[in-house]
């Protein structure tokens, strides 16, 4: 079975978000990691390969540090990697990313495409769905259990108040939700072997893309940080008076009672 996984590089979960002078999200000195939901996807691909045999290819679109997460996936056990660089693209959106990934996927053989259901940074949860749409593939979102048999995928997902079990023919796009599995750490041997595995670097031009095709359809107009939480207010005085004052403030200032 041939599986392609689409991991994205995101900020570390502990990264402190700041804005630069131009009001854009500051990427300087921020630790980058593989999006945690994508780690579930990589892990699931490796488990399926261990069970059914086959090959796992990891594909990612993004900046010069993206090979770090691809190497991590290779060290975990994936077989090969493709990095499509973002050179020359000033602004991107989910349409850009999905267009590029789908174009590349047309040249790859696959029975299954796995991705995280959302990235922890922009959280738009669109890319995998758009890829499925462009390629005309069935898609199951936020999967917590996955079985493959006889050319079909049987996927469980959590729905309000219970679970839903969905069956789709392969090839299909499946996105991972927390709970699907517990991702492994790469072993030391895996890390040493990763550098010997193929990692292809492509540009958008190599895919025959450019210009309007990959121009974003959505533009972020402004980013702003949440205002810092203001200090709590301590009401002094006799308990009875203080309680009365508290009620007054809750009603008149906070307007919650």
């Amino acid at each position, binding site marked *: 079975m041939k599986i392609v996984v689409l991991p994205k590089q995101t900020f570390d979960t502990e990264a402190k978000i700041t804005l630069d002078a131009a009001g854009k999200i500051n990427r300087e000195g921020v630790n980058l990691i593989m999006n945690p939901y994508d780690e579930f996807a990589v892990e699931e691909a490796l488990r399926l390969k261990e069970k059914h045999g086959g090959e796992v290819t990891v594909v990612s679109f993004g900046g010069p540090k993206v090979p770090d997460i691809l190497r991590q996936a290779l060290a975990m056990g994936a077989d090969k990697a493709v990095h499509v660089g973002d050179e020359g693209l000033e602004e991107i959106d989910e349409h850009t990313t999905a267009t590029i990934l789908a174009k590349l996927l047309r040249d790859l053989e696959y029975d299954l495409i796995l991705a995280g259901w959302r990235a922890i940074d922009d959280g738009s949860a669109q890319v995998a769905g758009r890829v499925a749409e462009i390629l005309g593939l069935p898609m199951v979102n936020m999967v917590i259990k996955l079985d493959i048999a006889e050319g079909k995928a049987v996927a469980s997902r959590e729905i309000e108040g219970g679970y839903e079990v969905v069956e789709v023919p392969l090839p299909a796009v499946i996105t991972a939700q927390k709970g699907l599995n517990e991702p492994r750490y*790469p072993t030391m041997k895996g*890390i040493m072997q990763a550098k010997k595995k193929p990692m292809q670097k492509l540009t958008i031009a190599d895919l025959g893309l450019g210009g309007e095709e990959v121009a974003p359809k959505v533009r972020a107009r402004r980013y702003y940080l949440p205002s810092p939480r203001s200090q709590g207010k301590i009401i002094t005085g006799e308990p009875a008076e203080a309680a009365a004052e508290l009620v007054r403030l809750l009603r008149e200032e906070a307007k919650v009672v």
Partner: protein
Amino acid sequence: MPYQLTDEQIMMRDTVRRLAQNEFAPRAVEIDRQHRFPRENIQRMAELGLMGIPIPEEWGGAGCDFLSYIIAVEEISRACASTGVILAVHTSLACFALLQFGTQEQKERYLRRLASGEWLGAYALTEANAGSDPANLSTTARLEGDYYIVNGSKLFITSAGEADLYVTFVRTSPGSRHKGISCLLVERDTPGFTVGKIEEKMGLHGDPTGELIFDNARVPRANLLGAEGEGFKIAMSLLDGGRIGIGAQALGIAQAAFDVALDYAKKRVQFGRPIAEFQAIQFMLADMATRIDAARLLVYRAARLKDMGLPHSKEASMAKLFATDTAMQVTTDAVQILGGYGYCKEYPVERYMRDAKVTQIYEGTNQIQRLVIARHLLK
């Protein structure tokens, strides 16, 4: 940057850091309080190939360089110093004993099991009357047919009772100090070999440090490592690598203490301000960070020299001396910065301080490190 790490070293460090912070750090508190051997940590390290990081793949190791191993000891000790020393003794003293001095057959029998983590290794040099002066050791081994008959006892042995193989130094010819010392590979279930008292220590509570008793223990002649009379040379040569490992352990402890102190100083408000705004605290933090950086450079340099096959005995001693003194200073300052809270078990810094102390003592006290360094200077 003088020590630019490779992509593999960075991935290895990040992987070990995640493992140690996610799994070992939360367990470290309980291991310290219950004086419990961290068997599950050893198991996890074996699964990930961390029990033989610098051992070639042909012997079941990961085939990484020594620096990678050193970085792993640092990251693991940052989470749990007991696990750190168990790994350090196992790798630099037991695995390397076989790798550097073992015959093909001894490597087949033992190195593969050690490097894969199936077996845990220990190193038994110290005795009651032979600490800083190991040439004074008096455990004897007398050859009888195909067996050495061993009598005597060893003291303060890391992983005592938990390890499967003990690289043990014994006297094979009486009265000749270091020239009469040989090295034997002693299996845990050797007849006549038992584990005696486990010490109650100030820190490193996860590492059982104890006595080994040899009462007419029968060790096969085939388990002699190197030639008779070469034991002292083997012991000292292994300690050169071992000391870099202890430097890395100290570095990890110091880093952990610094991280807590820095975070605390930014949050703790006294006199209406975070205490990090007081210059007295800032200067302490600045000194701590500077020493840790300097220690890291010394430790990584020694590891690099070893990787390049260059002499590193003096540099290993310098790294061990400076990094372990740094750990003691930094952990003491961290307790100070946390004030009364630092003295209590609610925060981890009192444990770091207790764990740091022994790094100045074992694998050669810091006085002995100075002797080694001076000997090189005056050569």
